[in-house]
């Protein structure tokens, strides 16, 4: 791991202009990724993690709009590119897989045909070659009887197989970055295990970097090198996986870890983060988390904390942590 910069997101802001007001779904997100690494973006509903991913791909649906910031991918700012240029990047240099494979696979076309499209579009192969490569690709993601499966329609495949097909499509052009948005959330636990193993294996082979979006801390613990925790539109902690779990610094992260029931270590009572997720139209002033934080100080109520490097690649956006570390 390590090496050159792949992705640098600075002060990304994406807002949704709804009839009730402006929803600041992503409000100043900063993070970076190096080539070959996997970064987990973790958050609950409304944290802005999916919108962040869609913003990188420039696929934010209306009434959403990217209103600020930079997304530097391999030296180029994606936010300044034209739609035509983005189309050439999507599916080739950056690929995305979603939670529900039924929505990204066209139900009226056969699976093999859709896979072949990728090859025809991006690698300029002719139809016969593309179809042969599709079958090989299906085989490589562990789908038994790939010749038969390629001729089937998406609804004829099980959830796990569809997800494999989608992964196959995403990795077909050997992209530099794979964005996976809750890829296993809709799957059964044993199938989830299979898919996670598959993703790990393929990443080893192809060397793709991965941005994994999920709300499941167990999944990121297993598959990611670094983890970023999002809350109310911003990243509040970012660290190497081992460090995050061993030494969570932000009260929200601590709260999250304490409230999850563990299959290997049963708890008597689950800790609770009091209160509710904030309204993104009128977020609380200062630190977004302060109304729910037990150690909130006056400063937290007025000043919005920025991500600060505590050391060892561990970043926290928290006033109290900044004080502890002796930083302004």
């Amino acid at each position, binding site marked *: 791991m390590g090496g050159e910069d792949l992705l640098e997101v600075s002060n990304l802001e994406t807002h949704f202009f709804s009839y009730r007001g402006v929803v600041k779904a992503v409000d100043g997100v900063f993070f970076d990724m190096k080539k070959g690494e996997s970064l987990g973006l973790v958050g*609950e509903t409304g944290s802005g993690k999916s919108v962040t991913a869609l913003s990188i791909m420039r696929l934010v649906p209306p009434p959403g709009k990217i209103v600020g910031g930079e997304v530097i991918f391999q030296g180029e700012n994606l936010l300044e590119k034209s739609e035509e240029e983005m189309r050439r990047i999507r599916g080739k240099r950056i690929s995305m897989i979603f939670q529900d494979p039924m929505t990204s696979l066209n139900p009226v076309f056969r699976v093999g045909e859709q896979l072949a499209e990728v090859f025809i579009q991006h690698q300029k192969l002719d139809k016969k070659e593309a179809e042969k490569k599709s079958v090989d690709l299906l085989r490589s993601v562990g789908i038994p009887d790939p010749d038969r499966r390629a001729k089937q329609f998406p609804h004829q495949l099980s959830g796990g197989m569809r997800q494999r097909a989608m992964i196959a499509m995403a990795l077909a052009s050997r992209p530099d970055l794979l964005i996976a948005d809750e890829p296993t959330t809709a799957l059964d636990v044993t199938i989830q*295990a299979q898919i996670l193993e598959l993703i790990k294996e393929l990443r080893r082979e192809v060397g793709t970097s991965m941005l994994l979006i999920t709300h499941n801390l167990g999944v990121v613990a297993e598959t990611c090198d670094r983890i970023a925790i999002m809350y109310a539109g911003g990243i509040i902690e970012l660290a190497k996986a081992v460090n995050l779990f061993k030494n969570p610094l932000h009260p929200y992260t601590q709260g*999250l870890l304490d409230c999850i*029931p563990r299959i290997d270590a049963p708890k008597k009572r*689950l800790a609770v983060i009091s209160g509710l997720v904030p309204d993104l139209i009128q977020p609380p002033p200062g630190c977004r988390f302060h109304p729910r934080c037990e150690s909130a100080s006056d400063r937290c109520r007025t000043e919005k904390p920025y991500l600060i490097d505590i050391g060892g690649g561990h970043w926290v956006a928290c006033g109290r942590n900044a004080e502890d570390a002796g930083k302004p």
Partner: protein
Amino acid sequence: MTKTIMEIASLRKHFPIKTGLWGEPKLVRAVDDVDLTIEEGESFGLVGESGCGKTTLGKLILRLMEPTDGVVNFDGYSLFNLKKEELRRVRKDLQIVFQDPYSSLNPRMTVREIVGRPLELHGIADVNERGERILELLEKVGLSREQATRYPHEFSGGQRQRIAIARAIALNPRFITLDEPTSALDVSVQAQILNLLKQLQSELKLTYMLISHNLSVVRHLTDHVAVMYLGKIVELAKTAELFERSAHPYTKALVSAVPVPDPEVRRQRIVLKGDVASPVDVPLGCRFHTRCPYTKENCKSEEPKLQEVAPEHLVACHFSRDFYS
């Protein structure tokens, strides 16, 4: 001495499906010969993946569906033999909380109507007393009295689930089926709801049947667990025993498949081959043999019966003794 509150014997639910004009009618064997007993006051967990039949079983024990065969005895009543009126009365004691808080509440009714309807239906208290009771129920589940006149749309997922719980406890039931009660919720909200459920259980002396695919939640909340696969129970034991000393390959695979929020824990993962089988084409012999990494010859022809591998620990596998650690 604990009393058995629910007894399920040889319960079966088969759905016939048509396969066109010429095909032979096929059967979806959703629940296939299930026996289990639940003690009063305990939490009983039912786990399995999609197609295992746990949701169907949950509906059968409430008689939201008629069985193909079998008996369910609830508190001494033979559920499937009750007449309409008797069933209505027994229903007071048997309630359910559903998974999706976005679709389990009638969008056209206010909170007060939703929670109050069971009281109205069963003629409990008069209009004024009912009003007060509804407000008490709301407070009990952590909502405020002012919210009684609102509609479900105006609440978050966790709050809606609280409303559903308030509805379920309105009639002072003895038994509540919780069908994936927190699967649609964020983890922080899940924690709140799980704590609430535990608290209500001890306060109101409730018995829970928890149906879930989330093994961590089941571990946290239950006393006994049954693992289902393709309509049958493959393992049944006290919770700690099942998770720490599982004796069925499927259970072992399930438990090992759950990712743990700790990157330093390196677990031996048993990855199963193939997909979750369909209850339409149930494999012969042991239903699990097509995915089992330890399949032997007799697994393909003989169906294993549930047998004790340790006190109160039942397993349906020919080689359970070898797997039991």
